[in-house]
């Protein structure tokens, strides 16, 4: 019986996690011979006869097409997907106990484990098993979210692709051409509206809606305090500021500071973004 983890087993947690993240993010063609062996093993572990036919698919979209064709539209990818290397969280959990502890009788999961190593998405049927290739590439930002600002973040060799902005799936045109400002800001999905604003950039949106200047500091790095009326959003305040890299940003700021005092200068707005008072941000020299 396992009652606590020893030092080696504790270290194994991180090793196991990293291994399975690598398996889940694996790209490139599957080894088809190994995939067939793994699929047969998974069926055997479940007490089933091996499938009569292994159907390889170039992507999950191609898998959908082939499942529909072979099942005369009775099934499709979404109604039947059973497994994928990128959905192996629970397999990773069992693999930890199988590899690092003496918990017994876990051999039945080895078929699914080997499928994870050797396949993308998998759909199981009595006579057929459908196995998808893995993506050609997966791109991520530095926080581990799928992301690409100038093309698909996930792409399969057959051209099936997914466009993603910092973990949020977006229409392809938003990445290739940029979102239309009016359409984007009227999107009923608030998260997509936020993402569209991020892609367009608030500075452009403020220009588009002809924001009113409340205060403009002589120092462009302190910036300009603006008020804008955004359709269906209402009146919002922004600080438009030049950053050290030479790019202009617009940062949403509240109408009042944390003490309820109205923010009516660019300096006060800039100081608020740092959580400090205006005189702390830019000390005045008094004589």
């Amino acid at each position: 019986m396992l009652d606590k983890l020893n030092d080696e087993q504790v270290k194994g947690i991180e090793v196991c996690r990293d291994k399975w993240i690598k398996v889940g993010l694996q790209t490139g063609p599957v080894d088809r011979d190994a995939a067939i062996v793994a699929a047969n093993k998974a069926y055997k572990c479940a007490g089933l006869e091996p499938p009569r036919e292994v159907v390889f698919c170039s992507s999950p979209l191609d898998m959908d097409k082939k499942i529909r064709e072979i099942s005369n539209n009775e099934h499709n990818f979404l109604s039947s997907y059973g497994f994928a290397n990128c959905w192996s969280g629970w397999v990773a959990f069992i693999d930890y106990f199988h590899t690092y502890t003496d918990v017994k009788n876990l051999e039945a999961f080895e078929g699914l484990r080997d499928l994870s190593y050797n396949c993308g998405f998998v759909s199981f049927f009595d006579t057929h098993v459908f196995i998808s290739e893995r993506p050609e590439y997966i791109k991520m930002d530095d926080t581990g979210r799928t992301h690409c600002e100038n093309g698909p973040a996930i792409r399969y060799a057959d051209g099936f692709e997914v466009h993603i902005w910092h973990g949020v799936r977006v229409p392809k045109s938003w990445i290739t051409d940029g979102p239309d400002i009016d359409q984007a800001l009227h999107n009923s999905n608030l998260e997509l509206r936020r993402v569209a604003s991020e892609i367009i950039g608030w500075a452009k949106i403020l220009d588009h809606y002809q924001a009113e200047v409340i205060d403009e500091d002589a120092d462009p790095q302190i910036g300009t305090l603006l008020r804008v009326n955004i359709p269906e959003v209402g009146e919002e305040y922004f600080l438009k500021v030049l950053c050290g890299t030479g790019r202009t940003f617009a940062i949403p700021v509240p109408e009042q500071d944390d003490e309820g005092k109205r923010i009516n200068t660019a300096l006060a707005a800039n100081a608020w973004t740092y959580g400090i008072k205006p005189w702390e941000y830019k000390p005045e020299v008094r004589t």
Partner: protein
Amino acid sequence: MKQVRDQVRSQVMGQVWDQVGVQVVVQDVVQVKGQVRAQVRAQVSDQVGDQVGDQVRDQVLDQTHNIN
């Protein structure tokens, strides 16, 4: 053609899950299983399943939902 997803995936995973359950001492179940669940299962799911698997599935859904 009949689906066997439940047998190949769900029943097998249920079976091995039960084995972990009965072989980890009850009073420490929360600590040991919880630790592995949080640090292996959850992180693999967050970093891979949510970021890749769910996005790919939803894209397939978008591109196929008008077919049927």
